[in-house]
Each structure stands twice: as structure tokens, then as C-alpha cells.
């Protein structure tokens, strides 16, 4: 990280001293705000982890204190009740494949919608945004019937395809707005060099879109990782079910095992955080090391 400008000054005049002081005050203030922001945002995670060690009575009677007896076996119960061994793997398979396909297809489509002008472009773009306006629950029964007729019920593919379809709109929506903001002359030199359309996409546009790509990868992953309704109705086989279905198992008709539920949710959140941390630097590539260095 580069040195802040004010530290480079060697002959500090009075005037600059005051400026420095003001800057320090400003900095402290910024950090103060950020610390509060961090606390407000992380508290629920901390709360979840702490409560994952409580029994039910403590959970509802003293929700904000540390557990009196640490119930480590909650994690064991959680692992079993939520069928984490099989469901976790299924979730990874389904989410990751859907993310890769959605982002790839979405980026390709966005490239043409954003960088080319053709007759139907605007309509196709509008057509895609329609998908963001439908409550998913309205499509459960029709989608179920459709998958039944296609023979895709009870398969991973039968889950991945709707995940792609329902995440394409927001993916395209974000990517198009991003790609549109590049100046037009970017491709022109490439065309002069004789680059094909798809090479421009792969070598010029995609690298430039990296922050937005990171954004949509994260969004897609979270959406798929937490998706419940489609998984509930489209999959019957125990060996194909995904994590959110397992995480619902803690709630019985008249009882809920909250401690174990928190333990299960704590485990389930780890992959999402890993993905986010891995992608975070691309989100803000410009500020870490300049755009070209990879």
C-alpha cells in the first residue's frame, strides 16, 4: 500500500500541522463509524455461533448471554439431523455448476446486449428483466409439472436448470449495465488487429468486467446455496437433496431444536464466506493493485 501523502512531507509547517491534525480527526471519525458498522453487521453471526452451544431453555430465556453449559453435541446432532454429509456435497455440486453456467451464459449474452446494436436487442433485454418480477412460489406447480414431463424430476440437472433460468435475469441486468459503461473505442483497436467477436469477449471484455463478475458470482452462489422451494418440490431422492432442506429438519410440528439449528446454520455459512473472501479482491481490483496486474 502506498504511503499517505502527508507522511511524505518532511518540513512540516504550522499550516500543514493543522491540516494533518484535521486529517487525523477525520480518519478517527471514519474508523469510528466503520467500527460501529462492523459491529452491527457481525453481531448476528456472533450471536448465531454463541447460541449454537445452548440448549433450548437457555436459548429462549437468555438469548443474549453466553451459554452456562456449552453444548458441543449440538454440532453432532446438527450434522445428523440435517444430513450434512450427503446434502452438503449435493449443495456444492448444484450451486457451483449453476453459478458457473449462469455467469458464463449471462456474461456472453450481456456482452452482445451491451456492446452491439441490433434490432431486437432492447426487447431481449427487457424480456430478461421480466424474470426479476415474478414471485418464485407462483412457478412451483407449473415448474414441477414441466420437470415431470421432461423426465427431469429427481435429478441434479433438474435443479440446476431452473437455478440458471431464475438467476439469469439479475446476472444479465447487472452485467449489461456494467458493460455499457465502457467507452466504445475499446474494441475498435482489437478489431483493427483482426480479433474475432468471441476473442474480444474473452480477452478484453471479461477481464474488464471482473468486479461485476465477482459480484454476480457471489450473488448467484448465495441464491443457489440458500434456495429452498425448488429443491423441496423437484427432488425426492434422499441422496440428491440439498442443504437448505436439511436445515429445515430442526423444526418439528410442535418443537424446534434451536441450539442444533444454529449449529447447522453456522456450518452452512462457512462455504459462502470462503467464496466471498476469495472473490473479494476482484470486487475492488482497481484499488488493490491497478487494473492490469493479475
Amino acid at each position, binding site marked *: 500500500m502506498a504511503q499517505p501523502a502527508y507522511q511524505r512531507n518532511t518540513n512540516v509547517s504550522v499550516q500543514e500541522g493543522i491540516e494533518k491534525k484535521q486529517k487525523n480527526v477525520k480518519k478517527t471519525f471514519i474508523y469510528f463509524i466503520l467500527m460501529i458498522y462492523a459491529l452491527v453487521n457481525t453481531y448476528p453471526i456472533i450471536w448465531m455461533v454463541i447460541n449454537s452451544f445452548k440448549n433450548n431453555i437457555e436459548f429462549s430465556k437468555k438469548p443474549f448471554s453466553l451459554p452456562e453449559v456449552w453444548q458441543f453435541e449440538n454440532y453432532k446432532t446438527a450434522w445428523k439431523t440435517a444430513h450434512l454429509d450427503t446434502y452438503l456435497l449435493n449443495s456444492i455440486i448444484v450451486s457451483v455448476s449453476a453459478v458457473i453456467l449462469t455467469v458464463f451464459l449471462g456474461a456472453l449474452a450481456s456482452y452482445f446486449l451491451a456492446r452491439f446494436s441490433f434490432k431486437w436487442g432492447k426487447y431481449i433485454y427487457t424480456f430478461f*428483466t421480466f*424474470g426479476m418480477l415474478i414471485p418464485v412460489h407462483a412457478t412451483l406447480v407449473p415448474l414441477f409439472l414441466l420437470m415431470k414431463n421432461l423426465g427431469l424430476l429427481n435429478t441434479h440437472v433438474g435443479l440446476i436448470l431452473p437455478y440458471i433460468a431464475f438467476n439469469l435475469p439479475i446476472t444479465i441486468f447487472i452485467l449489461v449495465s456494467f458493460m455499457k459503461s465502457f467507452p466504445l473505442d475499446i474494441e475498435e483497436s482489437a*478489431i483493427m488487429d483482426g480479433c474475432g467477436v468471441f476473442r474480444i469477449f474473452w480477452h478484453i471484455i471479461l477481464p474488464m468486467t471482473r468486479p*461485476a463478475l465477482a459480484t454476480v458470482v457471489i450473488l448467484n452462489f448465495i441464491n443457489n446455496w440458500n434456495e429452498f422451494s425448488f429443491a423441496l418440490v423437484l427432488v425426492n431422492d434422499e441422496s440428491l437433496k440439498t442443504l437448505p432442506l436439511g436445515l429445515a429438519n430442526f423444526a418439528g410440528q410442535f418443537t424446534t431444536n434451536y441450539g442444533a439449528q444454529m449449529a447447522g446454520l453456522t456450518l452452512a455459512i462457512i462455504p459462502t464466506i470462503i467464496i466471498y473472501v476469495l472473490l473479494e479482491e476482484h470486487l475492488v481490483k482497481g484499488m488493490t493493485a491497478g487494473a492490469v496486474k493479475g
Partner: protein
Amino acid sequence: MHLLSQKKWPILIGLAPAIIVYFLFAIIPIVISFYYSLMDWDGFTKMTFVGLANFKEVFNDPIFWQSLKNNLYVLAASVFGQVPIALFFALLLNRKLKGGKFFRTVGFMPVVISTVVISLVWGMMYNARIGLFNQFLKIIGLEQWAQNWLGDPKWAMVSVSITIIWQFVGLYLIIFLAALQNIPQEIYDASEIDGASGLKQTIYIVLPMIWDTIIVAVILCISGSLRTFDLIYVMTSGGPGHATEVMAMYMFDKTFSSTRYGYGSAISLCIFFFSLALIYISNLILRRKTV
């Protein structure tokens, strides 16, 4: 306009896969669902055609209008809460700061956490008996301000909206951060030479450059708010009474609890058209400003 625009086939190849998957697995189910809206169907016995009767009933249903009102409430909270807060923190975090990565990660956490956890922890904080908010008010001597946050119809929607704002600020934060990466460093430098810095720079240089992204964020707010479901479903189940009922939840209950697929579909069609109209209107307002 573009040199490549004469050739048709690459466009076709590029768009076809996305369109096909989207059409087959999103559009067809949606269209079928719209078709149900003209039917009376319980999912068990034969369906019968009833024309627009479902829509007539929707428009005369006071609970539906109540839920629309609540959706608009969430929408207002999102547009005027999430977007400015997210923008503020995006600008703050888009600079060289020690621990910047940490704060950016932390800012995104609420989007990652399960809705169940969010509703449980916020529910407990709002709790009238043992909740943190009321205890805090008690400590600072403002006990008369203590409320039954989620149990009182006057406050339930406010409380729920605050949680929703909190939950999704992180989403817009990363969208804005990504957009801010598109502004070349030279522009900041040039404007600083011209004497623009701080707030001025932000308002006159940065905001116009990410204005399109702000519009994107507003549209995402509209589509998200009108379909909002999970959090309210777990946090209040629409109660007390119907004080926090929202359209998507009402549609869900009508479909799967009362098994009135036709009526549920009619509500979802209304959600679709309301969202479309609101996006159109917001586009008119926001685009005009830029010109």
C-alpha cells in the same frame, strides 16, 4: 453504430443458450402460472375456467390492498434506506484504508447469513420483555419509548423494514463498489487539480459516473421489495393480524394453505404488473435527471 453489428450469427450464438434456458425454465412456468389465474383450481380436482373472476376478487380483497401497502412501505424503506446507506459506505470503503478488506467483508455479511438467523436475532432484539432495544431505552432513561416492536400493529412494519434495510445494504454495497472500480484514477486526480475534493468531488464527479448503477440499484429494490417474502414470513408470519402481510406471502398462503392456485396466480400477476409499472415510473424520473 458498431463495426461488428453487421454480422448476425455471432449474436445469435451468443444469445441463444441463455435465451433457451431462460425461456424453457423461467418463462414457460410463469406463463402457465398466468394461465392458472383464469381458472378455479385446487390442485386436486379438475380445473374450471372462470375468466377474470379471480382478478375481480383480488381487487375487492382488503387484505390484498393492505399487503400492497406494506410492499410499498418496504419499497420506500429500501430505496431511501438501503441505497443511500450503501452508497455512503461504498464511497467510504472505496479508498485506501487500513483494514478496508475487513470492513468490506463485514459489510457484506448480512447478505450471507441465513434468514432464519436474522429473524431470530432481530426478533429477540425487538422482544418486548427481554429485547435489547427496550432494555437499552430503559438504561438511557427513555423507558416511555419502549414498544412492543413486533407485536404492535403500529410498529411491526417499521421494525420489519429496519431489519430488511439492514439485511440488504451489503448487496448494494458490493454493486456500488464494483461500479466505482470503473472510474479511472485519472478522473479523481484531474478533479483534484481543479480544486474539487471531498463532498464536491463526490457529488459532481463520482455520482454522475455511477448514476446508471444507482438506477440499477433502484430497480433491484423495486423487484426485490415487491417480492419480499422470506424474512417477514419467518419473523412475523404476516402478523399481528395482517399488519405485516405482503403480497408474495399472501399469494403463498392462498396457493398452498387454501390451495387456490387460480387466486394465487392472479395475485402473482398483479405483483408482476405493479413492479413493471413502478420500474417504468422510476426510469422516467431517474433518467430525466441525468439529461
